């Protein structure tokens, strides 16, 4: 076994050498030069350690000379080697009065220990290179239930959070747990959903309202009510008691748009519904859209009332159901486009009004209609989708129920169901039927059972010990959970039924269709979030002393939201247009909307929708070379302290996310970059690191880290370009430090600044980036961690990808056609 273990390791190192490291360059990190234990490591240990931890003495009950080096098989020895690493890293061993490790000796020991520990850990986690039974995560569960039932409610509100995999993914079967509480929630969610969707009562009363004039307003945010929508005016209506609390509602409105003559800003209509006067829960936005054309237009919005914050009837501040239309176009700009002016009203009283300047895009509400519950027919569509109209229903209930169940089960379980399975469910239905008052409430229970069955909750691919090809329906599910985070639709389903989905040309067409489909945004959102850990930026609190302009009010933290969207929009653009992944490093366009354009100082971008904008359109004064992930605020803010850049976090981002080569974890008790030494806080980052790295234990690691981060110093915590650094001292004072961007990379190459870094990544690290990109996407697509047995698939995909100019959509095509994607 020992032999095998090292063979695998050797193989991996061999592979790494030829695949990711361009020849002639010293290898990055650990992978390349694993010291030979017997020849190199053992002599050092013998010299320095065996006297106390050898045959004669075993201080701390540790004996190193016979400690097994097979960390995979021998978990106990692995534990001990972990301890050895820790005390060496901490400088605790050898003890003070003994001979110290030289830098070279340390390098030898850790050079062997670090990769060996890491590898053993990975191998111990091995699942034989196969996907582990995947439970739907919350996002997939929500989407699946919404698509299955045709109604999107907040199904997962009370669910406990999903587990994240070691590679940062949320769809990894090994990390997704199940618990009794979870199962009770699934049961409750299924019952609640079916209670709403399968109706037993008669057609409900429909509330219809038509408003041609706003109320005076003044609540909830003190803004004046008006038909003319502006910065301090909004169209507010409320329905005191006569509104529904369940079901779909529809809002129709006619608005008139007046655009200024020269091309410029456009109004953005925002529709908000609901209002809880007593809590922090504000109104929920139903829709927001830019209106680019002048003139009158009629618009229609549909929502589900349960998803909006409703006031509690009969309470003191009860406002009824509130609907607000507003013009959000310049809501977040700092420069006012309105002025307050005092006028004398018709009744002679003086009052203050807000006036817009001439460039203000005007929006006037003619009327608004509310209707709810809104349905075309009764029972509503979603009910009829399950309990379809049929003459069988009255005459032959059993036959009818069989048809109903067969259709529902096969959709819910994403595969054909056997007669036996249907029979079992019909049997269950019939057993319950005498105890329930009607067909509908009995059926609900049968469907609840289907929705907590493993066939619904898991992506089932039953297979014994040997790998096997997926069935057509399993394949359709993998495909749709990869690209839609949800169940296959009818078209995919039909192709699985007929078996045509495996046909190469058909599959290509389907993948293109899926990526073009709106549902692909679910994949893009989730994948980008998990690949790049976008949420890091929300874990950073911006220091408003250093960045006083950053919006502080969380409730209207629009800039933060827009910053967060950028990488997602960027990935979407690259994927949908099948552009090269090189854009993630360097790009000649940026995805912007008006707010982000202001943040990055691009001119002439109007409206809230994201669109690609050429980097040439950046204001000359802005100087920053935007383009690619590394210049995006989401990434830069996430890898900052909120006050300043954090070069270690930035370096880790590059190595972990872009190069798939995360640095070794820091040793325990690693000191922060701050000491009690007076004056340390005023040193440049380079000087600070130099001091920190005086310790050999630190400098070995930091040599592989610091350079990547230093090269990104032109960008501050918010991702804005800078020429000097603002540092906040411990006493709160701000000082200025000169900007330093000259950086030495691990291979000894010196580069200066972001542009040089991009150049370097796209030339010297091109292959490595391509491989990392493949690894990340494949990990997500498969829903499992990759293992050594996947190397050949990764290699093949990487070669094709790199030869194909790294086009991303083509890579998706290659992945779904690869053997590994089609195998259980």
């Amino acid at each position: 076994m020992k032999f095998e273990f090292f063979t695998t390791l050797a193989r991996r190192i061999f592979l790494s050498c030829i695949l990711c490291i361009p020849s002639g360059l010293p290898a990055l990190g650990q992978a390349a030069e694993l010291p030979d234990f017997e020849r190199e490591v053992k002599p050092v240990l013998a010299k320095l350690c065996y006297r106390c931890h050898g045959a004669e003495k075993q201080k701390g009950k540790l004996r190193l000379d016979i400690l097994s080096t097979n960390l995979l098989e021998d978990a106990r020895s692995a534990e001990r080697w972990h301890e050895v690493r820790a005390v060496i890293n901490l400088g605790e061993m050898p003890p003070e009065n003994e001979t110290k490790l030289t830098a070279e000796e340390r390098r030898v020991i850790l050079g062997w220990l670090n990769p060996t520990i890491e590898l053993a850990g990975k191998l111990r986690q091995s699942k034989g290179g196969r996907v582990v039974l995947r439970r739907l995560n919350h996002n997939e569960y929500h989407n699946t239930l919404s698509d299955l039932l045709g109604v999107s409610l907040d199904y997962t509100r009370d669910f406990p959070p999903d587990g994240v995999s070691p590679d940062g993914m949320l769809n990894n079967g090994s990390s997704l747990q199940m618990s009794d509480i979870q199962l009770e929630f699934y049961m409750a969610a299924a019952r609640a959903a079916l209670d709403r969707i399968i109706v037993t009562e008669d057609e409900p009363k429909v509330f219809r309202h038509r408003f041609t004039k706003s109320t005076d307003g003044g609540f909830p945010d003190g803004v004046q009510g008006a038909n003319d929508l502006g910065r301090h005016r909004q169209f507010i209506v409320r329905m005191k008691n006569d509104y529904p609390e369940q079901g779909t509602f529809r809002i129709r409105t006619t608005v008139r748009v007046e655009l200024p003559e020269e091309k410029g800003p456009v109004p953005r209509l925002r529709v908000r519904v609901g209002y809880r006067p007593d809590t922090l829960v504000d109104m929920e936005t139903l829709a927001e859209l830019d209106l680019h054309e002048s003139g009158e237009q009629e618009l229609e919005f549909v929502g589900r009332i349960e998803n909006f914050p409703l006031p509690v009837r009969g309470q003191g501040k009860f406002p009824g159901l509130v609907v607000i239309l507003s013009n959000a176009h310049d809501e977040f700009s700092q420069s006012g486009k309105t002025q307050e002016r005092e006028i004398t009203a018709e009744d002679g009283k003086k009052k203050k009004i807000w006036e817009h300047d001439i460039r203000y895009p005007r929006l006037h509400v003619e009327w608004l209609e509310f209707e709810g519950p809104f349905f075309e027919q009764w029972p509503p569509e979603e009910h009829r989708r399950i309990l379809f109209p049929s003459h069988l229903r009255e005459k032959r209930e059993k036959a009818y129920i069989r048809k109903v169940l067969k259709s529902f089960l096969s959709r819910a379980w994403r595969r054909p169901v056997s007669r036996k399975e249907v029979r079992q469910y019909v049997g269950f239905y019939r057993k319950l039927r005498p105890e329930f008052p009607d067909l509908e409430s009995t059926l609900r229970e049968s469907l609840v059972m289907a929705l907590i069955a493993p066939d619904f909750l898991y992506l089932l691919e039953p297979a014994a010990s040997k790998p096997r090809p997926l069935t057509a329906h399993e394949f359709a599910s993998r495909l749709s959970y990869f690209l839609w985070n949800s169940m296959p639709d009818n078209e995919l389903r039909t192709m699985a039924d007929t078996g045509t989905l495996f046909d190469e040309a058909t599959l290509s067409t389907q993948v293109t269709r899926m990526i073009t489909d709106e549902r692909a945004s679910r994949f893009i959102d989730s994948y980008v979030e998990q690949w790049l850990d976008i949420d890091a930026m929300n874990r950073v609190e911006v220091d408003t002393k250093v960045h006083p302009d950053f919006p502080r009010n969380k409730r209207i933290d629009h800039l933060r939201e827009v910053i967060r969207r950028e990488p997602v929009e960027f990935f979407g653009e690259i994927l949908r247009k099948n552009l090269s992944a090189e854009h993630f490093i360097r790009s000649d366009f940026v995805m912007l909307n008006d707010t982000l354009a202001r943040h990055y100082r691009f001119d002439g971008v109007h409206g809230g929708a994201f669109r690609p904008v050429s980097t040439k359109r950046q204001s000359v004064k802005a100087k920053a070379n935007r383009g690619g992930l590394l210049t995006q605020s989401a990434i830069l803010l996430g890898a900052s302290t909120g006050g300043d850049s954090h070069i270690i976090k930035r370096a880790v981002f590059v190595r972990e996310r872009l190069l798939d080569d995360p640095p070794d974890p820091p040793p325990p008790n690693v000191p922060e970059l701050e000491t009690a030494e007076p004056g340390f806080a005023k040193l440049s980052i380079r000087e600070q690191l130099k001091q920190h790295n005086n310790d050999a234990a630190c400098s070995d690691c930091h040599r592989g880290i610091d350079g990547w981060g230093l090269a990104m110093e032109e960008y501050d915590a918010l991702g804005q370009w800078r020429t000097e650094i603002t540092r906040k001292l411990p006493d709160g004072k701000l000082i200025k430090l000169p900007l330093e961007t000259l950086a030495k990379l691990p291979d000894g190459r010196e580069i200066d600044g972001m542009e040089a870094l991009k150049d370097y990544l796209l030339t010297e690290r091109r292959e490595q980036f391509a491989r990392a990109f493949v690894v990340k996407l494949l990990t997500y697509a498969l829903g499992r961690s990759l293992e050594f047995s996947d190397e050949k698939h990764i290699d093949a995909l990487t070669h094709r990808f790199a030869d194909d100019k790294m086009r991303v959509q083509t890579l998706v095509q290659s992945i779904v056609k690869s053997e590994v994607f089609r195998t259980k």
Partner: protein
Amino acid sequence: MSRITSKSWQFNRRSFLRGTGVALALPALDAMAKAKTVAEPRRLAAVYFPFGVSIQEEKSEKAEWGWFPKGEGREFTFNKSLQPLEAYRDQVTVLGGLSHPEVRKIGGHDSADTFLTGCDLLSRDLHNTQSMDQVAAEHFAGQTRFDSLVMSTDGGVGEPTRSSTLSYNLHGRPIPALNQPQQIFDRLFSASDPDTRRHRRRLKSSGSLLDLIMDDAGKLRRRLGKFDQQKFDEYLDSVRQVEKRVARAQQWIDIPKPGLTDADRERLQLDADSKVPTEYVATMYELMHLAFMTDSTRVATYQIASMGDATTLGGKFPQLLGIGKHLHGLAHDWNKAEGVEPLGKWDRFLAEQFATFLNRMCKTPAGPESDATLLDQTTIIYGCSNSTTHTNKNYPLVLAGGRGLGFKHGQYLKYGEDTPFANVFATMLEQIGVTNRFADSTGNLPELLA
């Protein structure tokens, strides 16, 4: 005070050991048996009311309506508000001056969420931390049918800063509170009331439904590979757990409720809702008492009203009781001459309800063969995270019960702001054998212990 009440347990263990010939283990077991209350279940409860109390200077005209007692230490006298607790003087300790240091930073009305967690909600993007009751629940998990009973008048979780639950799980996520007596009763003891036909039906169908699922799942498992099987076992375990819960609940349908006398039934008004505060609050307390009595759970929390102002169902309790206006408004008038008495009466109403609960708890034996009372074996914290409305300091608190767990009572203790409220929780958790730390606690409070 040591009460060794687990005679039958000792006997059984010994005879078992003799039977199997493991005589060597006996001395150690003897030692164990001598330890205090080794076999007695230990319990924990927390009760919360919002918006603070009437606090009056000792010399003021309205001093008689001041919530905190006169005097200090063992020499204290209850004012009118807490007068109902006089009968249980040796079962309670009034705590003054305490608060959660982290919570002092946040808004007065935002603090209910943190009563049992002690964290600064607002600097954490409204994400809470695990509440102390859930630390205990986690520790006792599996020993009773329910790990905890979480109740509130409003039910659910509410919204951050206006929570309608006191309990937060390991991840700091709010645990939905139950608020309908019938529903709680059903969950604990299952229903026998024809009004819950649907529930009965569904309970029954849940049973057969889970049965069928289990059947199929067992077959499916055999078709899976090794790693899938391991994963799938989580699912099977979960189904089994839920099945057990459903089955136990079903068993209760036809089994007479344990120890429920006619008087108990009368007290238990399962149709009570928030429109009849006296009956409703009493019933919620009674459910807590019954849950402990039947050892259905070891941990319970009850939030009598939330800080949700207009939306809390408890907001209108004072009006319904005829002692004043809406609760929030009532609480705001604590310093107005005409406001003192109504608020004091509300405080007294709450104390009466609490006293009734204490009465029930100390009239019930801790176990079938126990000479300790349920109250002796339960440590209870009762209070609010506001002293007067909007003020997150000097919480009005009563620590009750748990004399069998080592607590001593009959005191009014005043603390300074340097003692975090979490020290009380640390002490409670330590006495029930869970842990000796919680949140920002700096130690336990020996003066609470015998």
